[in-house]
């Protein structure tokens, strides 16, 4: 154990946050999968055990990744990004359908389904970190700086959008944050946002006109959020129902919650173990528990920013801050959906929602951040040692 602890490097606070979130995840998933287990005639602890395995593997992945020297991610990022594009295309045409959007593919041999967009996101963020760090000198220039940075984002988003618009939009928006941090001119970002709005509207209109794609769903979700009563299809009802049920769960929670395993709403909320797990957490652990989760994510981000500050090289800095900010931003968005601050989008709560591949991709991201952290620690350690060595080493006697 000690040996393992000694070998484990990187920011201890981030490790702590990951462990606490995993623990919360275990509790919430166990509580909320009762109905699912019952419906599928499984033992009530079936999903707990499954989730435990997934989390354990996730921790292993973090451990494994953080051992890698972060400079190796330069090449990995490029390979991963180039790999993600054909996979996205494949998914778009042959992916498994879930909730109308084609999002999933099944890996042959190991027989694991995963959401290609998760992989694409990770690959894109790492790739962006590399380009942004490379283009710092010319970043303010539209042609030389902005276009090369923008291009990979546009390609990935365009490939995700038809099947899963909200993910694509979220991804685009997150990339804008990265652009902002990467010193891209604000007017360029606004231009991009404007183009994005036009693009989305166009896509929406085409989808609506041709009946292909998910225009109706998008329209409905916006309408629901706006509180409109119009609309005829059952989708509307379902979203309104979800939001309503989530709100009830939150109301049930009160300040300190109903207590672990005491959720009532888990029997009413659709998928209480994934998209709406945050409302179950609030129901069982109250406002206090809900705030704690928010603070944990913010803490994680704060620690990542510290790593960023200390990292002497641009790539590492961008990698750490980019991956953590996107992760935390997704978490915030998911919670915002749960409390009905933004319309319903199909986002999971990273590390907490039940699910295999998404947790593992999150683990990779965290592993990368920790890898940078480890490097920073070691780098500073070396400097220190060097300085100490300089100080302490007695000058050789003149001979």
């Amino acid at each position, binding site marked *: 154990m000690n040996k393992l602890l000694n070998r484990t490097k990187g920011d201890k606070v981030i490790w702590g946050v990951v462990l606490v979130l995993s623990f919360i995840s275990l509790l919430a998933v166990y509580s909320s999968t009762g109905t699912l287990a*019952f419906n599928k005639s499984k033992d009530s602890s079936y999903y707990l055990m499954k989730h435990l395995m997934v989390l354990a593997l996730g921790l292993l992945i973090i451990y494994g990744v953080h051992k890698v020297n972060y400079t190796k991610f330069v090449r990995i990022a490029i390979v991963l990004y180039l790999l993600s594009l054909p996979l996205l295309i494949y998914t778009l045409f042959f992916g498994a359908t879930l909730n109308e959007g084609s999002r999933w593919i099944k890996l042959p041999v190991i027989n694991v389904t995963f959401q290609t967009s998760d992989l694409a996101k990770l690959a894109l963020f790492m790739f962006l970190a590399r380009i942004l760090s490379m283009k710092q000198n010319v970043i303010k220039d539209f042609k030389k700086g902005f276009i090369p940075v923008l291009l990979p984002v546009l390609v990935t988003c365009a490939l995700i959008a038809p099947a899963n618009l909200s993910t694509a939009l979220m991804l685009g928006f997150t990339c804008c944050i990265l652009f*902002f*941090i990467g010193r891209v001119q604000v007017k360029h970002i606004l231009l991009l946002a404007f183009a994005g709005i036009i693009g989305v509207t166009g896509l929406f209109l085409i989808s609506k006109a041709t009946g292909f794609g998910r225009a109706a769903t998008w329209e409905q979700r916006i309408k629901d959020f706006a509180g409109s009563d119009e609309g005829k299809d059952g989708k509307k009802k379902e979203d309104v129902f979800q939001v309503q049920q989530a709100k009830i769960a939150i*109301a049930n929670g009160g300040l300190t919650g109903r207590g672990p395993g005491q959720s009532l709403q*888990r*029997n009413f909320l659709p998928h209480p173990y994934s998209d709406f797990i945050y409302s179950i957490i609030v129901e069982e652990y109250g406002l206090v528990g809900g705030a704690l989760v*928010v603070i944990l994510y913010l803490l994680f981000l*704060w620690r990542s920013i510290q790593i*960023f500050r200390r990292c002497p090289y641009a790539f590492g800095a961008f990698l750490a801050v980019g991956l953590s900010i996107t992760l935390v931003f997704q978490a915030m968005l998911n919670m*915002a959906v749960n409390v009905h601050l933004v319309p319903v989008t199909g986002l999971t709560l990273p590390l907490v929602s039940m699910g295999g591949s998404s947790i593992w991709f999150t683990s990779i991201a965290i592993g990368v951040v920790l890898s940078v952290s480890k490097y920073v620690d070691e780098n500073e350690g070396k400097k220190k040692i060097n300085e100490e060595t300089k100080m302490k080493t007695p000058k050789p006697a003149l001979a």
Partner: protein
Amino acid sequence: MTVKQDIRFRVYVAFTCICLLGLAIILKVAYIQVNEGPELRKLAKSMHTRTTLLPAERGNIYTEQGALLCSTIPQFDVHIDFSVIKPDTFNKHVDALAAGMAMLFKDKSADKYKAMLTDGFKKQSRYYLLKKNLPYYDYQALRSLPIFNKGKRRGGFIEDPKIKRINPYGMLAYRTIGLWRENSQTVGMERTYDSVLRGDDGTRIERKETGGVWMPIEGSEVEPQNGQDLVTTLDIGVQEVAEHAMKSVLEQYECAYGTCIVMEVQTGKIRALVNLGRQQDGTYWEDLNYAMMPTEPGSTFKLMTLFALLKDKYVTVDSKVNCQGGIAHFGNLTVKDSHLGLKLLSIKDAFAQSSNVAMATLGYKHYQSNPKKYLNHLHTLHLDGKTGVDLTGERPPRVKKPGQSDWSATTMPWMAYGYEIQITPLHTCMVYNAVANNGKLMRPYLISEVREYGKTIKKFEPKALEESIGDTATIRQLQECMKEVALTGTAKHIRSPFYSIAGKTGTAQVADKGIKYSDGVYQGSFVGYFPADKPKYTIAVVIRTKPRSGAYYGGTIAAPVFRMIADKVFAASKGWTGPLDSIAQKSDKQIVANYAPAASYDVLLRKMGGKAPETTNNYVIKVATDSNKKTIVQQAKIYAGMVPDVSGLGLKDAVYLLEKQGMKVVVRGRGKVYTQSVPAGTKINKGQNIVLQLS
């Protein structure tokens, strides 16, 4: 600002934004809890818990003998949700399931069932109607077949339980017992005594648990109060006979409808109430309560006029009245007898011959100047209001009154022989019953007890509406006149050699809803009681003919029904012997005897001073004298033309014996024959129903 500083600044801006978002989330949580909390929690409560109705069991209706007339049974509609059945499960078991269903229901072949199931499966129908109104045992058997035994979640088996009222005796007294349907109009006793039968539903609060299962919360239950049982005065044996007799006549003459009331003289208990109406297809069904619809009674009403005349001492039955050959004029209207040619007669004879002229003349003579006096007598007889029978739907009679616009100069003479007044057959029956009961007017009633779990909790006693409607002399003379009707009068052909009948025929032209007098629709009736010297039952038979029917006289169509019922009822009542010499005659030294019910022999042998044979009363026996001049008893197993005793027999044997005699057997229950609705030794009518109660 250096590049590094710029980036750091931008990171802090982003971080701040995300922190603000986090804060917003926490604030929104607090906002929802505080502001929308109470409403949402209320909503949650209504979703998490529900109040379930625990329906009370509706009470049964029994006869005084304990026969079950009406009960409640559970039934099931079964739907299938094919979308939850896995294809391989379906394909693997569909053959076994189809075969099982074919075996169970025997209405379709296994192939047909398979085609049906496959079709439903192909369409992935989520609510495929498989069977309706399944009895409990069939439902259970169906549920245990392959695929379905996987339940609702994986076998797609959806059952909708409902309750249904059943009448084990089918049409018998169907209209009187009434109908009870969910969310629909109820009629008959089911309606009158709904508050008794219904009971009070209970409730239970349930909470939704994992997997959508509703679990009752302990201590939240309010137990349902089951409905109480009713015991009706109806006698299923008498009812059966009355219904059968009525139906045979109605069918013979294709009549529009017929109603018949059998009332116990001393108590006013209604032992049978038949209401048969002709249906579109020419069959008869208990459709409307004709016994409680007021119509012009016709000649049976002459008894009321005679009652008035006698009570006021204007006449005695021996007074003479001129029947004027059967035609009399009042104003510009003419009263005519159905059979012309009657001259000067005693009132008794004029009554027996049913002279309209005689009654119209007498009524006119004595009451034209003071109709109120006449109407007061009708009031005494309770003819100007409802009888108060405990059955909903009784309509009030219509009695014209002087001073009203419809009272004319000829109303009185016409009323005197049964027109220009509308009363129900039940009214007529009630008044005749009072005469039979020596002047005591009993309220007719149908419910004698209310029971709960087999215990009597309320008993309805017979109720006299009038202790005495008139003096003994009046009643006695009325009885005398009615006896004359069945002896020499219009009903002499139904005279029975075994018992005496008193009554009155009636033949009225009908003007009613959509019917004019000229349409030639008649209402033939016979109301009377028997045995005339010691009355036990009053029977009112009223039959409405089809237009221009060949047979319409009360004596022709209604009186035979009376006779048939009286025969059967009398035969069934203990102690009736029939003509003793028809059973046995004593020749020189030995008895030459026929087969007869043991009950009859009992009386015969007592009269002969001998000892009653020791057998069960229900056996048909033959008594003979053996060589030692001792009386011996031989039991008859089957005797042509008589209903055999089948009690204690197995069902197969009983059905064989009875159907061989041409009877239709209706079976209730399981096991061996416990009772039979037609007593052993009764003469058989071909096609007559006999109900066997098994135990």
